[in-house]
Structures are given as C-alpha cells and as structure tokens.
C-alpha cells in the first residue's frame, strides 16, 4: 500500500536522511520509532509532498506520488500533524467537517452525509461533547483528538499520524491506539510515529526504527523492539523485560533496581523466589 524506496532528503546542505526504504501493507498499523531529530516528521512531509525529496520514490496505492494530484492525494491519505493552532475560533465540528473537503463536489458541496460522517467521527473518539467549542481554545491533547477525528472523517485508505498521543493523558493515549488498531482492522493503512517503545510494541503490527543514519530495523514489534536495537539508538538507556508475558521496555536503572528489590524481599523470606512473571530476556 505504501512503499518508500531509497529516499534522500536534505535541508540545504545538511542531509536529513539518506537512502530510506521500507514498506507498509494494506491494513497494517505501522509504528515509526526513533530519537528526536532523526527526521521522522521530515520523512512524513516528504511522503505527503509537503517537501520535495531529492532522490528515490514514494508509491502509494500502486501509484508514484509525483503523479498524484493534490486533490487525489487528499482522497487517499490523511495526515494528523503534531501541533497546530489556527488563528480563527472555528468550532470543533467545523474543523472535523473540513476533513470531508476532498470528497465535496458541486456548488453547495456539503451534504447531509458529510455532516453525519463528521459527527460520527466525533463519536468514534468519544468527544461529541466538544462539538460546539472553539477548536483553538482547547488544550493541546483535545486538539489532537479533534485532528484524529478529522482524519477519520476524511475516510482515506492511508493515514499518517505524527505523534498522535504526545499531548494526551494515559487513558486517552491507550484509547487512541485502540482506535488506530480498530481503524487498521477495517483495512486502513496507518503509519504513526511515536516516542513510546511500549506503545509501538504493544499496538503495532509492524515497527520501523530510524536513527540519524536511516532505518535501523524493520519488522514485527517483538523482533524489532529489542535491547540490541534500543541500545543502538538510545545508547544503553533501556532494558526489555517480560511482565506477565507482556514485553515492557523500561529504563535500565529502574529494571535493575526492581530486580534488586525483589532479591532483597526474597532474602528476607517474604517471597520464596523471584516471581515467575519477572524474568530477563
């Protein structure tokens, strides 16, 4: 559904990434993971034709994006930006309705179906109560949810989400990931970048890991989110443990402290052994 082939981009003389290639299949929820400043957002912008890359190609739905007109791109791919605040106090429902723009036709344009789809998208995210509030006066997290609703209303085959959970509280982060999962199951291809290794390993079908030199690893989360790869990009900060059969990435110091704690407990006979669910991988 989405193929990125050997992409090169530089701002002026400074190269941002060189020779990036990966692909995402239809209906896959793919996480893009990498340290700050490694070019994730730039990569997104190249794929969306906001920026012109210098070499390589991006193929969406079987067609090279340089051949897509801007109107057709919008029917194919939706984008949720990281942070965005417009100067005018549009209401939330109006912002979500803007997601229907690529599908509007005719002079009067907006039909009953479009409005219904906009309201449905608000319901999917359970933010119907915000519908009549000015969008630019919401908190950053609420705005992110609204933009997510707009992307759902846009009803495209591909979605790009730039850190969709960065400003959200814990329960909303999980909610957004579950919604993305559900949307992907309906056949939408999603590429989302995130800074939380646990989120990408828990919710994504596939993970692409980037650092400043390009792609480090690519594949199923349990193959990609490993101590070796994390050491490669974060230099010995992370440890990967299994808690009750679920993989957890945690700071190495915390992981060691916890193991020590348990060993102290066991030494004093409070527990007979290290609990089975905490083990080193």
């Amino acid at each position, binding site marked *: 559904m989405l193929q990125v082939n050997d992409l090169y981009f530089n701002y002026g003389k400074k190269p941002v990434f060189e020779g990036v290639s990966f692909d995402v299949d239809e209906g896959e929820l793919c996480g893009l993971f990498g340290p700050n400043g490694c070019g994730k957002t730039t990569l997104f*912008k190249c794929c*969306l*034709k*906001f920026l012109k890359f210098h070499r390589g190609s991006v193929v969406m739905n079987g067609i090279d994006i340089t051949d897509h007109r*801007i*109107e*057709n*791109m*919008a*029917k194919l791919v*939706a*984008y949720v*930006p990281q942070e*965005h*605040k*417009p*100067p*005018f*106090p*549009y*209401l939330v*429902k*109006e*912002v979500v*309705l*803007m*997601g229907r*723009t*690529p599908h*509007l036709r005719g*002079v*009067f*344009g*907006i*039909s*009953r179906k479009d*409005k*219904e789809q906009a*309201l449905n998208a608000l319901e999917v995210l359970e933010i119907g109560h915000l*519908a009549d509030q*000015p969008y*630019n*006066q919401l908190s950053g997290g609420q705005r992110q949810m609204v933009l997510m609703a707009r992307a759902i209303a*846009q009803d495209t085959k591909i979605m790009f989400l730039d850190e969709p959970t960065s400003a959200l509280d814990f329960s909303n982060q999980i909610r957004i990931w579950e919604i993305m999962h559900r949307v992907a199951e309906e056949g939408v291809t999603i590429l989302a970048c995130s800074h939380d290794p646990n989120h990408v390993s828990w919710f994504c079908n596939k993970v692409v890991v980037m650092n400043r030199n390009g792609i480090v690893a690519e594949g199923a989360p349990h193959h990609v989110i490993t101590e070796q790869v994390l050491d490669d990009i974060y230099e010995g900060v992370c440890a990967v443990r299994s808690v009750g059969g679920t993989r957890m990435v945690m700071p190495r110091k915390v992981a060691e402290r916890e193991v020590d704690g348990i060993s102290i407990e066991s030494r004093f006979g409070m527990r007979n052994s290290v609990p089975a669910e905490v083990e080193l991988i």
Partner: protein
Amino acid sequence: MAEELKRLSILERLGYERIEGFSEERKVGILVSLLALMIVTAAIAISRGVYEISVVDVYTITLAHLSPLGDTSAVSRLYDTIVWELRIPRILLAITVGVALATSGAVFQGCFRNPLVEPYILGVSSGAAFGASLGIVYPQFFLSIQVSAFIFGSVAVALAYLLARTRDETPIVTLILAGVIIGSVFSALVSIMKYISNDSALREIVFWLMGGFYYASWKDVALVSPIVVASFFVLWLLGWKLNILSMGDEEARTLGVSPEKYKFVLISIATLITSLAVSTVGIIAWVGLMMPHAARLLLGPDHRFVIPAAAMLGGTYLIVCDTLARTLTSAEIPVGIITSILGAPYLFYLLRTRGRAIFG
C-alpha cells in the same frame, strides 16, 4: 405552522438539508436580516440631504424611475436631478465600495491567517495613491485619475507578490514584508508628487487620499458595481476553500486544497476589487479591517457566512458614514475621516471585550 413546513420543503428542494448538530438556519436568518438592514439604511439615506426634499417626493421620483411606466414629469427637474443623478448613484457606489473593501478584507484575513490584516496590506492603497497623484499632477500624460490609480494599485500588489515568491512558494511572512516594502516605496513617491505639485494639485491629492464619494455618478456605478458584485459571488463560493486555507498551508494540502493556486486566485480577485474601489473613491480606511471582525462576532469564523455578512455590513457602514459626511455640515467631510472616527472606538471595544475570542 403550514408556512413553516412550506418554507422547509422549498429549502430542501434547493438542496438544503437539515441535520441535527449543524443548524445553519440561525445564520441564514442573520444574513437575511443584514441584507434587509442594508436596504432599509439605503432607503433612509436617499431621503436625507442638505437640500430638503420631502420623503414623499423622494420616493415618488425613485419609484417613477424604477417602474417601466414611470413618469417623472410630475416633480420638479431639480428634485429629480438631486435624487436620481446625485443621491442614488452615490448610495449605490457607497454600497459597492463597502462590499468590495469588506469582502476583500475577509479574504485577506483568511488567506494571511491573521485577523489584523486589511486589504491595503500588500500596497494597493499606496500604489493607487501614487497613480492618482500622477494623474492629478500630470493630467496631460494620464487619461484619467481613476485609470492611473487602478493600474498603479494593481502594479504595487503584483510587485509585492513577485518579490515574495521564491521556488514556487509565497510564504505569508515574506509576502507581508514585501507588501510593507512596496507600500513604503510608493508612499515616498507620493510624497515626492506632493512636494513638486502646485497648491491646487496638492489640495486635490490630499482630498483624494482622504477618500470620498463627491463625484459619484451613474458612470462609476455602471463600471464598478458589476465587477464587484461578480467578484463577490466568486469569493463567496470559495468561502469553504478559504476556511481550509486559513488553517495553514500544510493543512490545506492535506485536505486537497492547493494553497498556492487558491491563494493566488483569492488574492488576485480581492486585489482587483480593492483596487477598483480605491481608484474610484480614494483611500477609505477601517472598513476592510473592521467589517470582517463584526461579521465573525455575529456568525462565527466560517467564511461561507463571514464573507456575505461582512459585505453587507460594509455596504451599510459606508452608507451611514457617507450620509453623515454629506449632511453633518454644509460642506462635505471626507468620508475616510468619519470611517476612522467611528471605527477606532469600535475596534477598541472589541479588543477589550472580546479580544481573546477574536484575536486568539
């Protein structure tokens, strides 16, 4: 009740569909009332003037001219000339200019994503002022003040646009700076013209700069109104696209609206009507800045409603200001002075009471 049902079925046949949560009837209602307000204001303005003519006579003359079987021989020639040749074209021109400035103000504010932008931001007014002063000082070289003002107004904006364009893109900040630069260059040129002109030409330039409808005639109305009305409808139809543009370039791209293409179209049309208005009546301040604010206050930021509301408020406001300009004293006051004196406190009030909601 039956009336209500009938009204709804007509609306639905026109393609208007109701849906819970998106009621636009209130907004449509406000638009209709604004149109009514403008028409009533115009009707009152016809009957006002330094020369006292009874209300009955005024409307007899107006109706006589409007109906095909009308006969104006019953009223005096003088009254007929005052009402039909002076007051009515003047009011129509005031409406036209108000519509032009307020509409392009709304469009500029949307395109530039900034509620403090006015139609003169790209240098139309300074360019037109230079054109007009050239026409005034050198009447032998320039056919008419109006044509010369129009040409230089448009040239100024085109220059600003070209200056700002780099690699197929026109970033807003660069465009505004280019407008400021071009504007100041043309202001300097106007100063040169003032410096070298003789007393009577200087007086004329100063009057032109303050704006006014003194010379309004049917010829002006016939020339300017059709273009302004047509442009207004085109801009109105692009209202939804303008909403998308006002979210930012990348947002617009994501939603399938090419920012370069639509900004160019919108700015060109808005510049055309601003330039036409300025070249006909001189520089009238505040209307283009204030009316879109007032419209947003009434109807929210959706440009499908802001554009028509601003246009009608602009028309109404200029009728009021011009009527004051020609009736307050026996001599005429330039209308630009009145729009500013009435406008400044209003904007101050907005800033203090609703500042956060409007200015973000």
